[in-house]
C-alpha cells in the first residue's frame, strides 16, 4: 500500500493523522445497465480533520450514501483516491458504519449484535460482554439485551446500531441518516445522546442528513452537496459555541445567517 501511495507525485498526506479523511479528485459512476451510466459523484475533493463532526447535507440522490460507501471501502471510486491514514482500496476496517437501511442483524439479540464486532476482533468473552452492556446502558437500552430487533421499536433499533458502532471505538464513525425515519421526540433524544457520546469519544464523525438544523446543531463542518451530478456546493465551518443542541442552537449568535446561507445553497434564492 505504501508503494501505491508513494507513486503518487507530491503526496504529503501519506502520514495523515489517525481519524482524518482525504478525498482527492474522486469521481464515481455507476453502471445501471449495459447502456446507461449514472454519475453519482463528480470532482470531489475534501480534507476532513481528525476528531471533527462532519455533516453531509443535500437533497436525495446527490451521492451522500455513495460518499460514505467510498470511505467505508465497500464501493470503489471510478477515479481518484480516498485516504483514511492509508489509501482505502479494500473494505475499510478502520471505520464503524451505520448504514441507511436496516440497522441490526435480525437473527441476533441486541446483546449479541453489540458484542458482535468485539467477537470478530477477538476480544475475550467476559470483556466483550462488559463493554457491550456498558454501551447498551449508555444508549438507554438496558433491560432489552435479550430482545431480537423485531421486538424493538425503530428508534430503539437505531440506538442499538449506534451502540454497536461505538463499542469498538474506531477512529471514524460513518452514519447514513441514522435518525431519518424517526418521530420528532425520538429524534430529539437521539440527537442529544449522540452529541453527548461524541463529546466523550471525539472520534471523526461523518453524518448524513437532510435536516439543516440538525446539521448545524451537531457539526463542526457542514458539506453541502448538489445533485446530478453529485458535487460539493460548499464547505461550511460551524463556529457556534458548544455545548449546543437542536433546541438551543437557533438562539446562538450567527445561527440565522448560517441557516439562511445553507437554505440558499440547498433551495436557491427563492427559498427565502
Amino acid at each position, binding site marked *: 500500500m505504501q508503494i501505491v501511495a508513494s507513486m503518487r507525485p507530491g503526496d504529503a498526506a501519506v502520514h495523515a493523522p489517525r481519524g482524518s479523511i482525504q478525498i482527492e479528485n474522486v469521481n464515481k459512476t455507476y453502471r445501471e445497465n449495459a447502456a446507461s451510466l449514472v454519475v453519482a459523484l463528480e470532482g470531489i475533493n475534501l480534507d476532513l480533520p481528525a476528531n471533527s463532526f462532519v455533516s453531509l447535507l443535500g437533497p436525495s440522490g446527490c451521492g451522500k450514501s455513495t460518499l460514505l460507501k467510498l470511505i467505508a471501502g465497500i464501493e470503489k471510486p471510478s477515479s481518484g483516491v480516498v485516504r483514511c491514514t492509508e489509501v482505502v482500496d479494500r473494505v475499510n*476496517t478502520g471505520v464503524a458504519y451505520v448504514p441507511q*437501511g436496516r440497522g441490526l442483524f435480525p437473527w441476533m439479540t441486541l446483546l449479541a449484535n453489540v458484542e458482535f464486532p468485539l467477537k*470478530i476482533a477477538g476480544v475475550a468473552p467476559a470483556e466483550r460482554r462488559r463493554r457491550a452492556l456498558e454501551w447498551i446502558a449508555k444508549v438507554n437500552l438496558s433491560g432489552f439485551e435479550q430482545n*431480537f430487533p423485531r421486538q424493538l421499536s425503530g428508534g430503539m433499533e437505531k440506538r442499538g446500531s449506534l451502540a454497536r458502532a461505538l463499542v469498538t471505538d474506531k477512529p471514524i464513525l460513518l452514519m447514513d441518516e441514522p435518525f431519518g425515519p424517526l418521530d420528532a421526540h425520538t429524534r430529539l433524544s437521539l440527537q442529544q445522546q449522540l452529541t453527548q457520546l461524541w463529546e466523550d469519544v471525539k472520534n471523526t464523525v461523518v453524518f448524513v442528513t437532510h435536516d439543516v438544523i440538525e446539521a448545524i446543531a451537531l457539526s463542526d463542518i457542514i458539506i453541502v452537496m448538489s445533485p446530478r451530478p453529485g458535487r460539493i456546493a460548499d464547505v461550511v465551518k460551524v463556529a457556534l459555541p458548544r455545548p449546543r443542541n437542536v433546541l438551543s442552537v437557533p438562539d446562538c449568535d450567527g445561527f440565522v445567517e448560517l441557516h439562511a446561507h445553507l437554505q440558499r445553497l440547498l433551495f436557491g434564492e427563492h427559498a427565502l
Partner: protein
Amino acid sequence: MNRVTPIIQALLPAVVIIGAWELGAMFAFDPRFVGQPSQILSYLVAELRRGAIWADAAITFWEIMLGYVLGALSGGAVGFVLGFRPRLARIVEPYILIFSAIPKIAIAPIIIIALGIGIQSKVAIVISMVFFLMFYAVYSGVKQIEPDFIHQARIMGANRAEVIGYIVIPAIAPNIFDGLKTSIIFAVIGALIGEFIAARAGLGYYILNASGAFNINGIWVGVILIVALVFVLTTTIGIVERRVLRWLPEMGAGGNGI
C-alpha cells in the same frame, strides 16, 4: 381455556371423518372398495405384530433419508455457490432449469435400469427431486441477502468464514427450512415412484402387492405408515425451525383478517 381443549379441538375433525367413514362403510357403501377404519386398524396391528412390514418400512425410510440428505446438501451447496457467482450462474442456470423440468417419473425407469433394482436407484430418484427444490430455495435466498449485512460484517473485520457462518447462513435459514419442508413430501414421492416401478422391498412395493391382491386393508396400512413417516419428519423439522428462527417476525397477518 384449559390444556385439554386444544387437544380435543385438534382431534375432533379426525374423529368426525373416521366416524363418518366407519358408518358409511357399515351402511352406505361396500367396504371392499374403500376399506373400513376398524378393519384397517386391526389389519395394521396384525401386520405390525407379524413384523415383516417393519423391514419394508425401514428400507423406504433409508431410501428417503439418504436421498433427502444427499439431495439437500448437494442442491443447497450448488445454490449457495451460484448465488455468489452471478456470472457462472447465468451460464449454468438454464441447464438447471431444463434438468429440473424433466419429469422424474419419466426418467425413473432409466435410473432403475442404470442403478439396479435395489436401494441405490430409489436414493437417486429421491436426490433428483430434492436437489432442485433445495437448489432454488438456497439460490434465491442467497440472492436476496441484503448486501448491507455482509458489508457491515466485513467492515467489522469478519473474514470469509465468519461472514458465511454469522451472516449468510442465518440470513438464508428461513429459505433453507422452507426448502427442507417442501422437500420431504417430494422425497417420499420419489422413493414410492421408484418402488412402484421396480423393487423387491419397501412400503411402495408393499402397497403395490396389496393392490395387486386386491387387499384394500393392505393398501391403507402402507399409506398410514408413509403418512406417519412424513408426519414425524415434518414435525421434527418444524421443532428445529421454531428454535432456530426465533428471531423471525411472527408470520402471517391472516390471523387478523385481511
